[in-house]
């Protein structure tokens, strides 16, 4: 299988008043086309910043070094303008906090259609058609009505589905989902994970699924990365790593998962 993302010696540093903080420390990994990579690790281990740096959405005080080849283009060498043509078009991003991740004063329809109108130069009508299509994929009911609603009128689960919908507007090759279910209840969590499984199966989309919840990762991922303090502790096939962890830290992480989940 073809490699879609190849990360080499990636480091992320933050310039703070307390000096330089190393959030990601010289990591390397790759993702194959159509694969789902799970990234696990405790809070602050650098999971999020790894993918923020690859897509160029780090905070102003952050810098990234290394190589991140996406379809043989090094994303870290692109300008902001070039990157913005890839983000939202070829790479979709789903964020951790659905309650605050949508623009409060823009209705759902406009937040969806602007993506394909900008990247694909779609007409408003075509974009609306696509919007209805993706909302159907994420299993949102009464779509016509929903397009006119504002984020505050939606529940957390619905907003996260809209976020996933937004990431699908341009049929991306690759989706990064950063703790997509952390803020949601267990039932909604299951339904969202089912959407990811469907995307993988029917659309052949490559997924990076970030979570500190091993249970969530094991439901969707083929391969897994264990991160701690900015480094990769262990990587490999998801089932193998979870059933026979080699590293002490992985064992420790697994011991925190309730028995029934294994």
């Amino acid at each position, binding site marked *: 299988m073809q490699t879609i993302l190849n990360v080499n010696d990636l480091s992320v540093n933050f310039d703070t008043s307390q000096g330089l903080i190393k959030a990601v420390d010289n990591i390397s990994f790759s993702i194959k086309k159509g694969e789902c990579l799970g990234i696990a690790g405790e809070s602050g281990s650098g999971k999020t910043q790894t993918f923020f740096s690859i897509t160029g*959405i780090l905070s102003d005080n952050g810098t990234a070094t290394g190589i991140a080849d996406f379809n043989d283009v090094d994303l870290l060498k692109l300008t902001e303008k070039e990157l*913005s043509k890839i*983000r*939202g078009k070829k790479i979709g*991003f789903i*964020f951790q906090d659905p309650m*605050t*991740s949508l623009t409060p*004063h823009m209705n759902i329809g406009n937040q969806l259609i602007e*993506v394909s109108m900008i990247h694909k130069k779609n007409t408003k009508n075509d974009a609306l058609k696509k919007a209805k299509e993706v909302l159907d994929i994420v299993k949102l009911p009464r779509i016509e009505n929903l397009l006119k609603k504002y984020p505050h009128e939606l529940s957390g689960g619905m907003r996260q589905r809209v976020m996933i919908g937004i990431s699908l507007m341009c049929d991306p090759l690759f989706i990064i989902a950063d703790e997509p279910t952390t803020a949601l209840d267990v039932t909604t969590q299951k339904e969202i994970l089912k959407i990811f499984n469907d995307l993988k199966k029917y659309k052949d989309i490559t997924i990076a699924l970030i979570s500190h919840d091993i249970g969530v990762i094991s439901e969707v991922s083929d391969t897994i990365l264990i991160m701690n303090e900015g480094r990769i502790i262990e990587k490999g096939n998801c089932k193998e790593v979870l059933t026979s962890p080699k590293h002490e830290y992985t064992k420790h992480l697994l011991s925190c998962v309730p028995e029934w989940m294994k």
Partner: protein
Amino acid sequence: MIQLIIKRLAIAIPTLIIIIAFVFGLMRVAPGGPFTNERALPPEIEQKINEAYDLDKPLIQQFGIYLSKIAKGDLGPSYKYKDFTVNELILSGFPISLTLGISAIIISLLLGSLLGIIAAIKRNTIFDYAVMGISLIGICVPSFVLAPILSLFFGLYLGFLPISGWNGGNIYNLILPVVSLSLPQIAIISRMMRSSTIETLNSNFIRTARAKGIPKRRIITKHVIRSSILPIIDYLAPATAGLMTGSIIIEQIFGLPGIGRYFVVGALQRDYTLVSGVMILYASLLMFLILLSDILRAILDPRVKIK
């Protein structure tokens, strides 16, 4: 929306009555009366005048008479400007003060917001430091200090602009007073706008917009401004109040025949009806602006339910 307006009107009337009562009370507490002079009038004449103006009646009755007149839209005769009613005085001065105020508010809002947004986008650059530095001075220097300095420089040294008079609303006559009135407000608004824009730029939904690949310019115009302008909308009424008090002084400095001077002259000479007439006008204007800013807020922010 109509419900909101009706509700506000219902609140506005008792508020106005309280304000009228307060001004009425304050003026009576101040020593002397409208017809007290350095050379005392013969008591019989003073008695006659007081009767003519109902000033001999008990206070509460005076207040009642006054209120009922106001309800009919009659602010009463001026005690000091002979042969003029308060309505006539206000009508002659108000267009001038209004022109001054509206120009100052529009300029402050536009320029203040624009500078604030650009400073936020270019934060920690020379532009940002320059805007913030100058605005700090702008906040510290009140318009009554700024106005003479500006007239001295542009009016007297350079001779570009007239330094006093209304001249039928000639634009050149307006420039110096409007600039002196606006600069402190521009300073305040640009600082507010800068910090609220920075806050919005750091919010999660802007990160989403960036992750969607939206071009920078569109992120600012479509995603940032409508959120970051909200504190400015809330500031609209306080800004107006600031401009009103500022304009009383500015009108004096630039010799503009607005209502500001009636307020000052009226207060100094215990022209009861004139002072409270101007106060009623100011209070109504302020309440109108609070209503306006509430309506604007509801339009800009869908989370606000109009009640």
